[in-house]
């Protein structure tokens, strides 16, 4: 009986205005280790319970929901009101928005997410073109998917030129080793697998090559419009906390701390180090809507459109809502180097996937 009531309430939640949230639901993207740990700036905030402390005064609790199905599952959560704020990948964000989920892009996420196209160690496949017509695995609807699609477009190929299987990281590694697939588009977990001889990296964006870097993934931090509409004050405070955390952790001196946080879910430290390479994590995670980030966003949407992953363009002016971030930067990030020279609130965001 209790369950039926809970279920009915959940349905109502999506359709009506509530008096005030008892909880703020933050969705955390899944990882191959199934640990409910966020990484990056939000990970720092999670570790130091910054959000909880901020909202504890009014008795508002912060709930971290771990989504094993990563981005696509989080979209479903956003659609049915189970998720209020989340940081997730470029493609899921784009797919959700284009698919009609009403969200606001409130903070830019990270850029420079790498893909690792792995094959079995004894495989005779050497180049990407060799993979044509072969069995490829990846997690559909994630940043890996978009980066892969952009990669093969450069070669004049599309998804149809391959036999594509939707597999998680663990499934992919197992399938690769048992010979059930020929290649898998993975995250940095394949680095140490390759070192141990369990796989071979056929291609990676983790290079200095400009074209490779162009297709690296990025992430977006979105809030459901419903949450923004009902609790703009809470959302503002959430963003304030985010910026505070960013100020605390985005410091080149704290590189080791950053790597530790990134590895916390269970990734081998060495993987994270190699994945980061010589890049500046401060640059990659700077919480500002600058041209660097906006260009990535536009090209990502463009690529998704061209690949037929979305059928409608996204108007950035209706998606991005910089008001929260701008206020937060003023009050919290006065000292941060990465926020210096940031344009004032009145600067407008224009354009969409196809147009600058």
């Amino acid at each position: 009986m209790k369950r039926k009531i809970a279920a009915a309430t959940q349905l109502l939640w999506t359709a009506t205005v509530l008096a005030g949230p008892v909880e703020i639901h933050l969705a955390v993207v899944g990882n191959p280790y199934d640990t409910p740990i966020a990484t990056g700036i939000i990970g720092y905030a999670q570790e130091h319970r910054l959000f909880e402390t901020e909202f504890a005064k009014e008795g508002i609790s912060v709930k971290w929901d771990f989504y094993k199905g990563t981005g696509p599952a989080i979209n479903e959560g956003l659609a049915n009101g189970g998720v209020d704020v989340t940081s997730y990948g470029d493609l899921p964000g784009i797919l959700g928005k284009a698919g009609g989920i009403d969200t606001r892009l409130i903070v830019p996420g990270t850029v420079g997410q790498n893909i690792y196209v792995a094959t079995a160690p004894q495989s005779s496949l050497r180049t990407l073109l060799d993979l044509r017509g072969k069995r490829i695995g990846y997690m559909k609807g994630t940043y890996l998917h978009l980066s892969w699609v952009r990669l093969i477009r450069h070669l004049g190929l599309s998804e149809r030129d391959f036999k594509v299987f939707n597999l998680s990281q663990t499934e992919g590694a197992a399938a690769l080793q048992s010979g059930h697939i020929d290649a898998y588009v993975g995250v940095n977990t394949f680095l140490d697998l390759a070192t141990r001889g369990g796989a071979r990296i056929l291609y990676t964006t983790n290079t200095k090559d400009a074209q490779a870097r162009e297709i690296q993934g990025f992430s977006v931090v979105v809030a459901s419009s419903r949450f923004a509409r009902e609790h703009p004050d809470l959302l503002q405070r959430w963003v304030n906390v985010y910026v505070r955390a960013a100020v605390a952790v985005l410091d080149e001196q704290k590189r080791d701390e950053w790597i530790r946080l990134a590895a916390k879910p269970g990734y081998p430290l060495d993987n994270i180090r190699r994945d980061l390479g010589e890049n500046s994590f401060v640059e990659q995670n700077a919480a500002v809507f600058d041209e660097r980030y906006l260009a990535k966003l536009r090209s990502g949407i463009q690529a998704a459109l061209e690949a037929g992953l979305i059928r409608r363009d996204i108007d950035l002016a209706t998606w991005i809502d910089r008001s929260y971030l701008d206020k937060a930067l003023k009050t919290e990030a006065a000292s941060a180097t990465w926020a210096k020279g940031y344009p004032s609130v009145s600067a407008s965001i224009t354009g969409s996937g196809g147009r600058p």
Partner: protein
Amino acid sequence: MNAKAGVIAKGLVLPLLLVAAWTALTSRHESLLFPSPQKSVDAIVDLWRSRTLQGYLATSLRRYVLGLSIGTALGFATGTLVGSSRIAERFLLPNVHMFRQVPLVGWIPLLIVWFGLGDLSRVVLIAMASLFPILLNTHAGFRQIPRGYLEVGEVFGLSGWEKVRRISLPAALPWIRTGSLLSLSFGWTILVASELLTQSNGGLTDILDTGRERFRMELVNAGIVVLGLLGFAFNLAATKIWSIGSLCWRSQNIHPSNETG
């Protein structure tokens, strides 16, 4: 009695032989695809000790019982309705048949988006699964009642509802029984499907999932055995309850429909 024991014994020879052969073969070489039964037993014991198994069990059972109760209640009520009213039958039955043809698993993505990743989607699916067998069998039970019986009821001046209660239901009982057992087993099957096709759900299929993901066959085997045993246990329990609770018509010539939906 000896004859019956003999039959049971003969039936068990093959399974025991298979298990023995499997154990013997795998004790000699380690195989990834065919781990020894001992490994599966160990895995189950571990899960029991760490109290994970109990958690899985409670979660799966909760969903199952809830879905089953809703489904069989609705199914029985609707079955009685279409069984006793020609009008209802004309309107509803073809649609029931049509709806039944839509594979339940296809609804899962939709249910998840609508009801979230919580238990509601699975309970709804299980309810849908257990609804049809009992509905159809109850209907079939009603429809096979010889006209004569009902005419007797009319002669005695029974009302529509009384006719159902005193003539139709008892006459349809074997069918209803079959339907309920089928609902039970199909509901269990769909519980497994609903858990497998939705992710990280804390139910018994997590054993299977972990086994498949990490390529640990002994877990997959263990999971299959556990699920099979439980299904068997439920069926046995339900059958016993039926024999105790009602008369069981045993007729050589009556064969209840085996619609599983």
